[in-house]
Structures are given as C-alpha cells and as structure tokens.
C-alpha cells in the first residue's frame, strides 16, 4: 500500500505538467529554510534563525507585529478610500455619505480603515508596555526605544489627522479641542506665557497647524495631505529603521 502510494506520488511529481509548474522539489533541509528567508523580498528582513523563546506569544504578545499589520491594513484600505474622497469643505462630508450608501462595500471599507487605525493605537501602546516590562530598552537597544517613542507619536498624529477628514461634528470638534492647547504654547502661542507682542492669533504655532485661526477648509486640505502622504511616508521610514535596528541589536531581547 505504502509502496503504491509512493509510486503514485513519484508519477505525479515527475509528470510534465507538475514539472512545468514547480521548477524543483522542496527539500526539508536547513539550507532550504535559510534560502527561503534570504531569497524572499518580503521576508528577508528576518534573520534566518532566531532564539526559540522569541516565538513565545507570552513574551512579545505579538504586539509589534500586530501594530505593523494594522498599519498595512490602513494603508491598503486608505488608498481605496482616496478614490472616493475629495478633501474640500464642499465635498468631504457628502463623499463619505456617498461612500457609505452607494459604493458597494463602501461602509465596510470605511469601517475597516477606522477600526484598524484604532487597533493600531491600542497595539502600539501595549507594545510599548511589554517592551518596558521585559526591560528590552536596555543596552544595546536604547536607540531603538527612542525610535519607538517617535513612532508612538507618529501613530497618534496619523490617527488624529485622519479624525478630521469625515468633516462631521465629531471630527470638527475633536480636532478643535485637540489643537486648542497650542494657543498656550510658551513664547510661540498667542495666549502662552512669555509670548512677545508680535505673536498673534494669525502667526502662532496653532495657525501653522490649522492654516487658519479656526478649523476650516484649509485645515482640511492640510490634514489630508499630512494624513495621506507626509505622515505615512515618515512612519514607513521610521518602521524600516526600527525593524532594521531590532535585527542589528541582536534580534528580540532574551534572558541570555
């Protein structure tokens, strides 16, 4: 019986059709495993081998990886959303409504984008918590922790700039409240302590952020460009640096 099955398997894998699809067999060897990582453009950031404890869910909680996955989901769904959305005060709100009611799976698309963004904020906070609890920021990973802190801010900023785009009451007032404090920046905000008299409502830091004295159409455009172009590019660059440093610093930290 076993012999028979082996013969059948050989017959299939030696057939012209099979050989035309798969160029060679799959050997179960360490060399093969290593090449699998080294030759794959998506996987080559991994080292070929890692310490066994790094596989443990209870050590890393998978939170760094989940953060990255959430970022990828928002990138893909975000590009799709951009096909239906115009960042102007006339159209923005109506485009979101149109997306929800008239585009096939438009509501699902919007939901996935929003919940993945919220998910990213949760997972990045938990990731930071676990890196602290395992003391993984200690030598030689000090700098990668600093890169992480910047990534945390970038994640908040990505989420915050996106919050304005639906241009509804929720968006408008959350961003109004969130940027109000910038008025009080010492020296650079017009209501802050030690502000020189030249600093007014229309040239302080809040003005630079909002492109106006209140949240308005220019703010919408500014946040749109930050949200869809500038900040994602920055985040991608920093993540590349972050992952590269995880590897260069000796892989995931461990007890030895």
């Amino acid at each position, binding site marked *: 019986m076993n012999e028979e099955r082996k013969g059948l398997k050989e017959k299939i894998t030696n057939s012209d059709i099979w050989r035309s699809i798969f160029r060679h067999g799959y050997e179960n060897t360490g060399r093969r495993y290593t090449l699998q990582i080294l030759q794959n453009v998506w996987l080559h950031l991994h080292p070929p081998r890692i310490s066994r404890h790094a596989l443990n869910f*209870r050590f890393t909680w998978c939170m760094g990886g989940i953060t990255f*996955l959430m970022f990828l989901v928002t990138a893909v769904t975000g590009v799709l959303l951009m096909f239906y959305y115009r960042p102007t005060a006339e159209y923005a709100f109506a485009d979101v409504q149109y997306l929800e009611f008239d585009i096939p799976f438009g509501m699902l698309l919007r939901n996935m984008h929003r919940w993945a963004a919220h998910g990213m904020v949760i997972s990045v906070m938990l990731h930071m918590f676990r890196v602290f609890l395992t003391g993984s920021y200690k030598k030689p990973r000090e700098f990668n922790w600093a890169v992480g802190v910047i990534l945390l801010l970038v994640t908040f900023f990505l989420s915050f700039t996106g919050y304005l785009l639906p241009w509804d009451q929720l968006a408008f007032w959350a961003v109004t409240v969130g940027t109000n404090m910038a008025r009080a920046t010492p020296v650079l905000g017009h209501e802050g302590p030690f502000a020189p008299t030249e600093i007014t409502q229309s040239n302080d830091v809040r003005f630079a952020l909002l492109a106006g004295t209140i949240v308005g159409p220019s703010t919408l455009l500014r946040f749109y460009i930050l949200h869809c172009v500038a900040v994602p590019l920055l985040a991608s660059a920093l993540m590349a640096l972050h992952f590269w440093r995880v590897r260069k610093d000796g892989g995931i930290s461990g007890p030895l």
Partner: protein
Amino acid sequence: MEHFIALVTKPDNVPIVAILFLIPYFMWLSYRQARQTDKTGVPSDAHLNDKVYVWPYLCRNEFVCAIIVMLVLGVWSIMIDAPLEEPSDPTKTPNPSKAPWYFLALQEMLVYFDPWIAGVVLPGLIIAGLIAIPYIDTNPKGKGYYTIKERPFALAVFSFGFIVLWIVLMIVGTFLRGPGWNFFAPWEYWDPHLVVPLTNVNLSYLFGIRSETTANFFGFVVVAGYFALGPIVYLWKHKTSDFLQELGLVRYIVVSFLFLTMLALPIKMILRIFFNVKYIWVSPWFNI
C-alpha cells in the same frame, strides 16, 4: 444608567472597552512569568535558548497571528459601523466637546493645570522622559525577561504613569466626564445645565495670605522647595546610597526632576479634589 450603557457601546468607545480587558489580561500574563522568575531566580524562558529556523517556525506564527487579527478586525468591521454625525458646523458647539479617546488623558490634565502646562509643557516632558528612560535606567538586570524583584523602582514608576495617569485618566475622560467637563458617576444623568459652584481658592489663600506680592513669593517658595527636594535628598544620601553613587549626579538630576514632575499631577489632583486648591503659585506672568 441607560445613558451610560449608550456611552459604553458608542462605536468610537469600543477601543476603550477593549483596553479595559486587554490591560488586566496582559498584566496577569506578565505577572505570572515575573513571579516564576523571581521564585526560581532563573528567567522563566531561560531554557528556550536554542536557535530555530525562522522559516517555518516564526513565519508560521506570524501567519496564524495575522489571520486571527484579521478575523477579529473583519468581525468588528461588519458588526459596528464607523460613526458619522451631522455635517460640521462651527456655530454649534457640542457639550461636552471631547478630543479623540487617546488624547483624553491630556484633556483631563487641563482640569488641574493651565493649558500651557497641561497641553504643552507636560506632553513635551512626557516625550522627553520616555526617550530618556534607557539612558537613566542604569540597572543592568531584568533585560529580556519579566521580573519584579530585580527592578522594582523602574516598574513601579512606569506602571503608575502608564496605568494610572494614562489609561485610567483616559477612561475617566471618556465615560465619566459630561457637559461642562463635569464629573458624572455612571448612574447619573448628564445634566447640561448643572452648575457646579466654583469655590476654588489659591494655596496661599488657604494659608491666610492676602497680599498679592506675598502670595506670589509664597507660591515661588512652595514650587521651588518642591523641586529642591531632589537635590536635598541627594546631598543627604549620596555618600551612603550605592544606588545614588551608581546613578551619578547628572542622571540623578534628570531622574528626580522627571519623577517630581510626574508626581505633581496626582498631587495637584488631590489638592483640587479635597482642598479646592486652584493655583499653587500665582505670578504676574503665569499660574501653576
């Protein structure tokens, strides 16, 4: 109560409800590993120190993890719709106006400090402090495994900041702050016309000081004295404490300054809630 349930089930508040479960779960998970390490004196994963191939072992884990997370996200996205309220209207201010949930701890700080401190100085110091952590924590132990015994001070300070001053304040801001940013218990009705009498007074007033100049000076002394606690402890202890010797003067100054700044928030909260203190230091240029 119904109204509280509506608040908890608001689509944008789902992440906070999730956090309510996730944080205790992960604290329990890490506590179990730390306890094992501390009991045996050997890191709980020390025996898993051989090397394995990333393909297939790690890639398989990543794949399974990604599928599970995508399933959760998919179900979440099918079940709960993203909110869309009325079109924005600058003339109609909602009460309360809230920032997105992850900024509510910052918004909560606005109750206790003026905007330039709560909105600018403290966030700046939080960022600087986070980046500084690896450079001021000189303890070489507890690297790459869970433990409590080997680094109790670092864990206590960070956990207090993360759990209490960040997560808890975020939850308070989301669920317990209503119109006028007044505090409402879950079973209370959010009355938009509730008037809370402002009976807060400055610290100097509590001490019977009425003259403005004296009050200004008094405030300066209290704040300066508070931050002088750091150097005083150093002068007093640095000869006898190994911890301080190892830390060194510069690191000590940074640590004590950040530590005292962090504690200033709960101190001000207690002073406000129990003693109705408005400002500690009123000066012609700024108030603290």
